[in-house]
């Protein structure tokens, strides 16, 4: 990715994800890239974007250089419109008030299922990961944008453990399991932008990032991707996007 504007993979993720957000949306965001991207969108194009945190915050405005270390810290409430209980803010997802759920991912499969619980046998895991947090609730109840690093070990045919449901086994399995609402909308990586086809609900490429080839994406993906005949190339991050992003995270806590 040696474009006009050199940037890190994390910066690319943040910029491209921010572009997926629309003004006026209600966005349930995790910390790290999701919060950075939502705040970037807020500053550049979407002054009416509302950010929700699972700690119990509605309408946060993150201050440059004061990124919260988690969604449960007081910094999340600075200049917020409302503070409420953690369960209550999650219930807003269930009632349908949230337009977009926005999180990172450790491991994803062809149906957009996410694993953040364990590698290996769940009963006796090789690696025990931190777990779902609100991830399972958000992805069960909202339309999802996931921003994550693109590596073969992270893009697998089937995740070891479905922590946060995508389309489960594809087709109508998600709705049949009792999850008629929401589902994966976009997956953003440093290599490409993905959505999911309407029938099989398998991951498909929408656009390649500047300078990235189909082969490069395939080589870094552990399953067969769907390719539309119309695949575009994403616009590279602009100087303004990167400058704003770096202003928000001057210590480069999240943008690497």
């Amino acid at each position, binding site marked *: 990715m040696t474009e006009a504007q050199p940037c890190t993979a994390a910066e690319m993720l943040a910029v491209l994800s921010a572009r997926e957000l629309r003004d006026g949306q209600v966005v349930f965001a995790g910390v790290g890239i999701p919060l950075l991207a939502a705040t970037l969108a807020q500053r550049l194009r979407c002054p009416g974007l509302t950010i929700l945190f699972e700690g119990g915050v509605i309408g946060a405005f993150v201050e440059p250089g004061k990124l919260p270390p988690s969604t449960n810290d*007081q910094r999340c409430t600075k200049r917020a419109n409302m503070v409420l*209980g*953690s369960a209550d803010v999650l219930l807003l997802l269930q009632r349908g008030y949230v337009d977009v759920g926005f999180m990172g991912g450790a491991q994803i499969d062809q149906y957009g299922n996410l694993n953040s619980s364990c590698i290996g046998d769940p009963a006796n895991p090789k690696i025990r990961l931190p777990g*779902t*947090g609100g991830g399972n609730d958000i992805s069960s109840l909202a339309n999802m944008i996931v921003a994550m690093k693109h590596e073969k070990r992270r893009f697998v045919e089937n995740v070891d453990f479905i922590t946060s449901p995508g389309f489960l086994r594809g087709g109508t399995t998600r709705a049949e399991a009792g999850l008629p609402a929401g589902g994966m909308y976009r997956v953003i990586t440093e290599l490409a932008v993905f959505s999911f086809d309407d029938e099989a609900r398998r991951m498909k490429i929408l656009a390649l990032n500047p300078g990235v080839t189909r082969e490069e994406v395939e080589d870094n993906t552990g399953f067969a991707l769907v390719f539309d005949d119309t695949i575009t190339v994403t616009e590279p991050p602009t100087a303004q996007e990167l400058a704003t992003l770096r202003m928000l995270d001057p210590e480069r806590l999240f943008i690497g």
Partner: protein
Amino acid sequence: MEMSVAGSSVQPYMRLREAVSRRDRSLREKVVSLEHAASLVADGATVGIGGSTMSRTPMAMIWQLIRARKKMLSCSRSIVSTDGDLLFGSGIADHIVTSWFAQGILWGLSKVMRHHVEGGLARFEEWSHMAIGMRFRAGGMGVPFLPIRSMLGSDVLRMRPEAKQIECPFTGEKLLLVPALNPDVALIHVQRCDAYGNAQMDGLQFMDIDLALAANRVILTTEQIVSNDRIRRTPDQTKIPFFCVDAVVEVPYGSAPHECYGLYEPMMKHMEAYVAQVNKDPVGGMRAYLDRHFYGPASWAEYLSLIGMEELLEASRRGRSIYHD
């Protein structure tokens, strides 16, 4: 699994009622020492922990429980941070019920959690964040379950036979019933309360109100004990009523090195040093940390002075800034 089913089994209504009726719920002063409060937590008890991640963690109470060498506690919390490390690392708890367990997003995985869980020394029972909240809420409402629409179809649910899928008798929709969670004792840290236990919390509430109502015993630690008149001047800031509370302990900086809303932010230098030390060596590093910061100090003030005056001042400056514009 069998143990964890037992740990989460729903208590029959009359047993819950009898437990409440045995508590002295009269309007009485109940200020005690940390040591006395710790004596109210029995070995093997189920313990609900207030706050979330690095916020309003009842750290002083956890500190005292570790010093008192409690055994086989089963702890539940919305989201677990270094408090979970310390509960496992000290050996006082062998079971944690939560939705997320690491030191903090900034630091990746907790090597302490991994050491204990992957090694089979302790259990990390995972529920979704909302499910934990609804389990406390059901417990606080005095009902055996609440219905939710998440966890369905996931492996998080596959690992939780304690929850029951049903077909809704009204709509025929698939729903999940999550079982009430009524811990034997809850540990909650607040900004202020009176000597009776009327507690006021500022800012983020997390799941503490439901937890306080759900638990069969509540131990409050507070930054400051205020007069009952102070409480009565702002009754709509009172979040926990006195008759749910069994003990009150005044502990300034009682969440250190975590934060307490409006008073201090996390003490990040200390947190980073801690994380580096225990993730480098989850056993030896943890033992050394506990010896120095938990078993060593003669008092909570001494514990705080090990964190350091500079850190406390800086954390306080940041903490109070939330109100300053």
